[in-house]
């Protein structure tokens, strides 16, 4: 297949889709399937037949819309009507009123327009709009035209220049400039070179990468193709959690389709460019998100990080130059190539361009998957997009950056979200988890919870992370069970600082963040716990209370 053929497929597909008057997109992602999305899909297929509108109505199985709290979600186009909590029983009514009579069923529509208003969808541009199992759907949206453009009109250096100019920074959490990383790999003369796409999310409550893979797998593949062309790699691996069955299935299908259309393989778009792609399954370890640990795991070894340098750009997989990128970073690439680096650099802030996907969870009204421009404030995310606190309870804290992120108080809600300002207040961008916490949660207990997680996930290689975190956990147990001492606060501070500075990899270096930020912003709760044996939220001292009750 040549580049011209791609254009023809796109045109043909657009015509084909235009033939339908309506398009019913049923979200069938991991979030909606447990609520019966597949039954809803089937019900729609049956209903359009029953009403005799199957010729004018296309029922499509799509990826995530974002409003995970009101699933299964269904979007009917034209008009972008979003139906919430659709059940198979309601389907007949929707098809009859909306499609046949042209009267959208108002009381079933989703009315959280604010949820979408402040979002900006670049990475999730196709999520919920295309059928991820059809490559034609992606091509019709302009898919694979970016790699086509690169191969036909750009040099590898030109591609890197464009990516550098976009100001894109790695979405894996650390925020390293993507263009710089690419030129490091491109500059090495050793061959072969490899690309590894990181799709290993281990954090509780984080699902953005999984959702992306389920909704738009070709965006990841196209991003990898462009990266491979730019740095001169011929082989790539997508490192994905084995416990993401739907994402794996979707990606496998997408890779097979891309191979079938010569978009992957020995002769991409008949230009002589060669790139092949394989999936690698991770057994599930938080530390496997660390780039050197991924490398070990892809090679088939125990996922343990190693010290850098050498950096993977010089010595990665099997000692060869390797480009490691998060899938979210890669999904940005086609957009940058299509619209130009300069266009992209104007989205977000000057130092931090583009958007970021967040898994927004916790005690708020509209949890779900969001994509916002960099520089948006936490207040906008919590109140405008998140719809404010559940049951109007008082806001207490927001945890930004997953289990090794920072707990930020209300005073910091106007903080703009970008890599640098988050780091300044002790939080991290991390893998993009935002957990909103209300007054029913105890901050000491929350910090303990996340420390427990990191204790379980520590690989055991270095002393600070392996042994230090255990001691922090034990100190927390003492404090929350009524045997804490005031000295413990200083000890926690000291140990946390040590673990942060001395650990070998990112897991250990960020694991004390919840501890250090709660000590910084919620110290009075620690003192209350230790001195007064009081927990404002009533989460701690359960054993103590039980003993007292038993004694009486």
């Amino acid at each position, binding site marked *: 297949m040549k580049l011209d053929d791609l254009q023809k497929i796109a045109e043909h597909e657009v015509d084909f889709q235009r033939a339908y008057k309506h398009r019913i997109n049923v979200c069938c992602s991991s979030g909606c399937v447990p609520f019966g999305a597949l039954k809803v899909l089937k019900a729609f297929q049956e209903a359009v037949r029953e009403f005799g509108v199957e010729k004018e109505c296309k029922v499509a199985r799509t990826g995530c819309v974002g409003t995970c709290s009101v699933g299964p979600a269904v979007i009917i186009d034209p008009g972008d009507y979003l139906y919430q909590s659709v059940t198979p029983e309601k389907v007949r009514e929707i098809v009859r009123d909306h499609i046949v009579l042209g009267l959208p069923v108002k009381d079933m529509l989703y009315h959280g327009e604010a949820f979408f208003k402040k979002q900006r969808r670049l990475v999730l541009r196709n999520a919920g709009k295309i059928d991820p199992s059809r490559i034609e759907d992606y091509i019709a949206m302009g898919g694979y035209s970016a790699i086509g453009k690169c191969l036909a009109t750009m040099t590898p250096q030109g591609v890197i220049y464009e990516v550098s100019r976009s100001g894109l920074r790695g979405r894996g959490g650390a925020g390293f400039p993507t263009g710089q990383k690419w030129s490091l790999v491109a500059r090495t003369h050793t061959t072969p070179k490899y690309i590894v796409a990181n799709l290993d999310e281990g954090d509780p409550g984080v699902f953005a990468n999984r959702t992306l893979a389920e909704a738009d797998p070709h965006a990841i593949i196209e991003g990898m193709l462009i990266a491979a062309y730019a740095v001169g790699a011929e082989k790539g691996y997508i490192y994905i959690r084995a416990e993401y069955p739907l994402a794996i299935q979707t990606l496998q299908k997408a890779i097979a389709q891309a191979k079938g259309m010569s978009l992957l393989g020995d002769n991409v778009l008949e230009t002589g460019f060669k790139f092949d792609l394989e999936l690698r399954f991770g057994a599930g370890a938080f530390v496997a998100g660390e780039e050197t640990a991924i490398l070990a795991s892809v090679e088939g070894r125990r996922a343990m990080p190693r010290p850098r340098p050498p950096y993977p750009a010089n010595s990665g997989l099997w000692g060869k130059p390797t480009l490691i990128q998060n899938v979210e970073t890669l999904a940005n690439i086609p957009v940058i190539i299509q619209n130009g680096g300069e266009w992209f650099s104007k989205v977000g802030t000057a130092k931090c361009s583009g958007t970021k996907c967040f898994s927004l969870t916790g005690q708020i009204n509209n949890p779900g998957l969001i994509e916002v421009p960099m520089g948006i404030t936490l207040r906008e995310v919590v109140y405008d997009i998140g719809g404010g606190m559940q049951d109007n309870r008082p806001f207490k804290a927001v945890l930004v950056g997953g289990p090794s992120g920072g707990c930020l108080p209300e005073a910091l809600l106007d903080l703009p979200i970008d890599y640098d300002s988050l780091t300044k207040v002790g939080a991290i961008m991390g893998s993009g988890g935002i957990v909103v916490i209300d007054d029913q949660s105890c901050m000491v207990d929350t910090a303990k919870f996340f420390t427990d997680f990191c204790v379980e996930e520590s690989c055991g290689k270095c002393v*600070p992370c392996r042994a230090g975190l255990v001691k922090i956990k034990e100190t927390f147990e003492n404090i929350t069970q009524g045997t804490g001492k005031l000295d413990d606060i200083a000890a926690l501070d000291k140990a946390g600082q040590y673990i942060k500075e001395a650990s070998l990899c990112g897991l250990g270096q960020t694991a004390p963040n919840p501890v250090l930020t709660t000590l910084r912003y919620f110290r009075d709760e620690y003192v209350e716990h230790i001195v007064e044996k009081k927990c404002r939220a009533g989460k701690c001292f359960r054993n103590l209370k039980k003993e007292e009750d038993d004694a009486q």
Partner: protein
Amino acid sequence: MTVGTVKLKIDNVEVAVPEGTTILEAAKSNGIDIPTLCNLEGLSGYGGCRLCMVEIHGSPKLFAACVTPVGMGMEVITQSDKLREYRKMAIQFILSERTHICAVCVANNACELQKLANDLGVDHVMFEREWTRLPVDSTHDFLVLDRNRCILCTRCLRVCDEIEGVHTLDLKMRGKDAQVIIDLDEDWANSSSCTSCRKCAKVCPVGAIYVESVALEETKDKGIAEFVLSRRNRK
């Protein structure tokens, strides 16, 4: 390819070492001692014990001297209040992690952990100590693995893999539960790959792997090569 010379300062002393040398080696060759437990000359760098952390002028980060190569013009600081504090902390954490009781340890007075604790002035452990009992493997004819004394420095793993070339030893589990295992978690007596070369016992910095009923000085004796050869050639 010729190897260039790198000039740098370690604790304000100007030194010149071959390119690619680690900070630890550079310091050692110039008589500056940086403490370490997991590092051993001749084995690959591991960077696990974090005792050899040093400061490099101009960087807010700390660097593990055993795995950081020297750079031209680098100014390395190996001793500071913060580094001493952190090294003590590392020793405290190691001591609190398993049952390290010197009086009943074969390595008493010949133990690198004990020596470092003494040198650094670790007189107490700030955190509660762990008393969980882990399995001891004494099934081998003369080698004993006492996991309660193991500090997970993996010197034994690396010497077995990289020098002896058999990779009998490995780790299982992760984090605090990580343990050294023989083959696929077999008893040592049933190991099909172990050549009984004793290298693991020789390199163990503490008393976790030792030769039964043999004084530690003798274990560390180099005159076992003949024995190793005879074990290797056995069918």
